């Protein structure tokens, strides 16, 4: 019996004895990490459509000055739901979806450590999201922004039930996110295949590990704040109510000591995806593995010490600002390290410009714009001018869309053949890439200028001065282009699943273990695996079996037996 022990949960793999029919009931009851991963992605798409529709309605309202398309009540509900949805119900589930799907495959395990908890995390997130959206039927959605500042979030100023649904919904969604993160931490620590020491873990696995720890640390302040707010609203306590001796500023401290780590929670896993994508399409190992991983750890630690840069105009005083200006500037350094290491990975490589790689390269440009505009908020006097203006709207969309989403799309085009068993037409993929990238920049680049010209955020309308009208109209046109391209992406994905060319096991000549197994993987991921000797076990395998030109059939015959594993593994050891 050659090969290696494949870690799997102690209980028999749940569902192995279920018939292989992929009916709806089987999906709903599944505890298989691959099906749950895909369901997470469907969840993200569902809420992306809802959050995107809210964004388009807002852009219609803002297309012309003084428009009465939406009432201010409706506008405020829509922008609150747009932000909350995109952060908690689109980006987070998309990241968790890829994490729970790819991580066990990448570390050579057959499932996550706690498959049932995995299913719990998915469904509690789904029901939390539904509860949040139920508020529209129950008398009004939350209307105080996703940041939900006190005292505007108090019953006195927001008497509808929306904010109660916000608290309850996010507590549930948060429980799912924390549960899944703990699951990922345990899986990554205990379920790696033989030989995959921490120093040989792929960068994506590292980023998910760091990120999951970040989730576990960041969500408690949010949960505390939400619970306190629910008490304020339901039982007349006064944590945030000035009249009862509370303090509105406490909400901001609690919210942002969650909220800023959350920003990094949404970017670290995409950093990991991009690291895989750059390596494979450059045919080179990641440049400066230690630095890329180390800078991820640095970001995670610093993330807990920067929250006051959201509060530089609350009058806390220059002494406090000094500390948080320093920490916020410092966090730019490890982020910069990553950008240059990815360029270093491409340097001297043999670059293949697949759709996935195009998104990764575009990410470098968009995310650099977003990162640099972010430095503006660390430089306190510049923050004093630009915070709470449309400049922030530009910045955060360059980070969340140009950063996180571009990273996730690079990952989607990279892993789609593995997940679906079908290739995406490169031609259609590239159409989507250009439409989406142009639409995105058209929508959000002008927001920088609006902010510089003094247009505040979160306004349902604006006066016809200072050229606001033309810039806003441009943004609306861009938003519809983005909206159209998202529908086009869904069409492409559906078409690929229905009629796309069948995907081989390893279509990209990749490096990591998930490409050893079939596309899509069987319910049991691996029967046999080679022991891991380096960061790129699949490359080692291909080299050792003299299989220079990969084909579909990496079958078990070519798995090295213990006797014929040559020195070639050690040679490329990092």
């Amino acid at each position, binding site marked *: 019996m050659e090969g290696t022990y494949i870690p799997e949960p102690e209980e028999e793999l749940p569902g192995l004895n279920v018939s292989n029919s992929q009916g709806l009931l089987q999906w709903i009851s599944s505890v298989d990490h691959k099906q749950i991963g895909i369901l997470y992605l469907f969840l993200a798409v569902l809420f992306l459509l809802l959050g995107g529709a809210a964004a388009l309605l807002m852009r219609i309202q803002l297309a012309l000055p003084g428009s009465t398309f939406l009432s201010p009540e409706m506008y405020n509900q829509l922008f609150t739901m747009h932000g909350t949805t995109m952060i908690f119900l689109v980006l987070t589930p998309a990241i968790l979806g890829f994490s729970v799907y790819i991580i066990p495959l990448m570390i050579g395990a057959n499932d996550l450590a706690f498959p049932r908890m995995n299913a719990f995390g998915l469904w509690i997130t789904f029901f939390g999201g539904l509860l949040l959206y139920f508020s529209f039927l129950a008398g009004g959605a939350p209307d105080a922004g996703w940041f939900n500042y006190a005292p505007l979030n108090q019953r006195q100023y927001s008497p509808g039930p929306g904010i109660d649904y916000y608290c309850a919904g996010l507590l549930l969604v948060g429980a799912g996110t924390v549960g899944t993160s703990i699951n990922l931490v345990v899986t990554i620590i205990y379920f790696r295949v033989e030989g995959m020491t921490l120093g040989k873990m792929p960068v994506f696995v590292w980023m998910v590990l760091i990120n999951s720890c970040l989730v576990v640390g960041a969500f408690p302040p949010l949960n505390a704040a939400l619970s306190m707010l629910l008490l304020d609203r339901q039982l007349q306590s006064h944590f945030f109510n000035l009249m009862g001796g509370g303090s509105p500023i406490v909400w901001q401290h609690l919210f942002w000591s969650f909220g800023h780590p959350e920003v990094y929670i949404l970017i670290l896993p995409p950093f990991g995806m991009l690291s895989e994508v750059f390596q494979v399409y450059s045919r080179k190992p990641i440049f400066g593995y230690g630095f890329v991983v180390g800078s991820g750890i640095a970001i995670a630690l610093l993330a807990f010490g920067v929250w006051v840069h959201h509060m530089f105009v609350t009058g806390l005083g220059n002494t406090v600002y000094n500390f948080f200006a320093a920490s916020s500037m410092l966090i730019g350094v490890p982020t910069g390290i990553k950008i240059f290491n990815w*360029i270093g990975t491409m340097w001297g490589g043999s670059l293949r410009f697949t759709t996935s790689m195009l998104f990764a390269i575009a990410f470098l440009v968009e995310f650099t714009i977003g990162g640099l505009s972010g430095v*503006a908020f660390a430089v306190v006097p*510049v923050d004093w001018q630009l915070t709470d*203006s449309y400049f922030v709207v530009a910045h955060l969309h360059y980070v969340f869309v140009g950063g996180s989403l571009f990273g996730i799309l690079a990952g989607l085009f990279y892993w789609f053949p593995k997940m679906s068993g079908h290739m995406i037409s490169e031609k259609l993929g590239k159409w989507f890439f250009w439409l989406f990238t142009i639409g995105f920049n058209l929508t959000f680049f002008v927001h920088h200028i609006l902010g510089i010209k003094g247009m505040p955020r979160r306004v349902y309308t604006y006066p016809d001065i200072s050229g606001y009208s033309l810039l806003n109209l441009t943004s609306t046109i861009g938003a519809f282009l983005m909206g159209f391209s998202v529908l086009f992406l869904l069409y492409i994905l559906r078409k690929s699943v229905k009629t796309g060319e069948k995907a081989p096991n390893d279509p990209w000549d990749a490096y990591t273990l998930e490409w050893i197994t079939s596309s899509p993987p069987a319910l049991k991921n691996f029967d046999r695996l080679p022991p891991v000797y380096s960061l790129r076990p699949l490359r080692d395998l291909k080299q050792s079996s003299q299989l220079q030109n990969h084909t579909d059939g990496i079958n078990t015959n070519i798995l090295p037996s213990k006797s014929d594993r040559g020195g070639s593994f050690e040679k490329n050891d990092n």
Partner: protein
Amino acid sequence: MSQGSHVISIFNPQSAEAWKLSPLNNYLIIACSFIMIVVVGLLIYVTIKFRAKAGDAEPKQIYNNRTVEAFMIGIPFLMVSFFFYQTVKVMNETEPTVQGQVPTVVITGRQWWWQAVYPGTTVVTANEIHLPAGKKVLLQLESQDVIHDWWIPSFGPKMDMIPGVKNYLWVTIGKPGVYEGACSEFCGKQHAWMRIKVIADSPADYQQWLLNKSKAALPPADTLALAGAVIFNKKSCADCHSIRGTPAQGKSGPDLTHLASRTTLLAGMMTNTKEHIKRFINNPEGVKPGVRMPRFIFKKDTVNALVAYLSNLK
């Protein structure tokens, strides 16, 4: 009148404080442009030079280069240190601490208008705030309800107005003129219509303005306006609005003593005309949804009398 006459932009500094901040804006733009050019330049070079060609052998496998890494860490670190030094310096120069000085004006954010009280005088006004040009003045910023934020882009920094907290902002306006801004912290339904207008007067004009505005309201000029004054006090108007020199001493709405000398209504929402005042009294919710003023079912004559009275309060 002067709407749009000055360019609202952080690149149009009109106060000494904004001037102090603006070199930092420029340094940041230069540094960001430099990094952007480096990143995009490298990407263009890399994507052209290292494009895969058919039959390429596996390229040389480079894992690390400590010299390159040292530059990657060192250069950003130096840039960040420079900006940190500048930040601390500019921050302390622009907004020194307030040591017991009496503010020139106390501005209170309300849903959704600005109240301005001038300590040492009886002047109370709303939304259009007069300040002397060429003099370093201190603004005291407060809130009556939720968090608001005071921002005039040409004056540099913004500052939150938080219930239970007194915040301060220094401003030294360069020359007389009209400067616009808006509430910059989301404060509810009418956050969009909480615009600010600062009228900077020459010191002499400013003294004259203070003198004029500290006077009680003009008595009604004609019988229609007189009827309006009676209605104003008899109906609920006086419960919320003050008109100094009359029994109307309400505190929850804007002071209307000199309403007719303002150029706009409802925090910049519309120009101050009889027609607009009438429209608003007839249907406050329809004009500015969410506004605190209730809708009174007045007869046409009653409204006309009120409008005649109010539009006379120079």
